[in-house]
């Protein structure tokens, strides 16, 4: 287990293997400054984990929402009954969350290829993150409004 501490400290805390100093012959190449800004490994890991979760939750979603439902589509009442069950509510919410995380990171990768300037990229990344959070907020609101509709 001890080696797993290292990626945790590397990506989340103070990395233990900060380069002691300057790379001779390569101007201005001290890695400490760059180290803090670059957590791409963590982004990749989150994208992979969210991808894995997606396979599970999307599978459940397809089965619960389409396969088991006669005709494949739920009418309004059926949607409400389904979402009333706490387990269904949780899995649908986690599905939305992992989709948004996964899509956000992937979109940022696209952006990183198009945008050359590091500053602009940071801005674009923040915008993408906000969009994802906003979308998640909207789905929560929509779910509440659907559930409260019948009350």
């Amino acid at each position, binding site marked *: 287990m001890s080696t797993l501490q290292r990626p945790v400290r590397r990506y989340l805390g103070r990395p233990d293997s900060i380069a002691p100093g300057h*790379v001779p012959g*390569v*101007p*201005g*190449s001290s*890695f400490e400054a*760059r180290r803090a800004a670059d957590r791409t490994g963590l982004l990749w890991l989150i994208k*992979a984990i969210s*991808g*894995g979760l*997606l*396979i599970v939750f*999307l599978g459940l979603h*397809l089965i619960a929402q*389409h*396969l088991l439902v006669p*005709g*494949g*589509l739920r*009418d*309004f*009442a059926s*949607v409400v009954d389904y979402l009333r069950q706490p387990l269904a509510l949780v899995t649908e919410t986690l599905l939305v969350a992992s*989709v948004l995380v996964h*899509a956000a990171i*992937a*979109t940022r990768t696209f952006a990183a*290829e*198009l945008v050359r300037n*590091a500053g602009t990229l940071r801005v674009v990344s923040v915008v993408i993150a906000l969009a994802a959070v906003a*979308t998640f907020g*909207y*789905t929560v609101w*929509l779910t509440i*409004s*659907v559930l409260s*509709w019948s009350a």
Partner: protein
Amino acid sequence: MDDISRQVAGGRQIGLFRRATYWLEPRWRDPGWLAFAMNRLTGVIVLGYLVAHMVVLSQLAAGPSGWDSLLATFGSQPFLVGDTLLIGAVTFHALSGARVIMLTFGIGTRHSGALFGLVLLVSAGLTAMAGWAILFR
């Protein structure tokens, strides 16, 4: 971009158009290229569908009458065919992602091309089954 990368750049500038389309430059002899390109294409397709799906679901806020009237159109044949293709894109994208994760952890690194073949096969199979379930059952 650190100094090592700047050295690697060595003055080679790549324009915006090429940066946006480099992944579409075909390398038919390398299955990994097709895996990468299709992964992106299916990713974009699914993202597009999700946006549409969000818009459609927002109709729920209009209550039962608004929503239930939509069911007829979304249950119609063209939409069902669309759904099957969508499932194809999703299954491929999922399995292709799984392939990259496996390779990252050293599984199947000697057969990365064959792994892609497997991804194609399995996703096609799943899509066929889903298609049968949606269209003919």
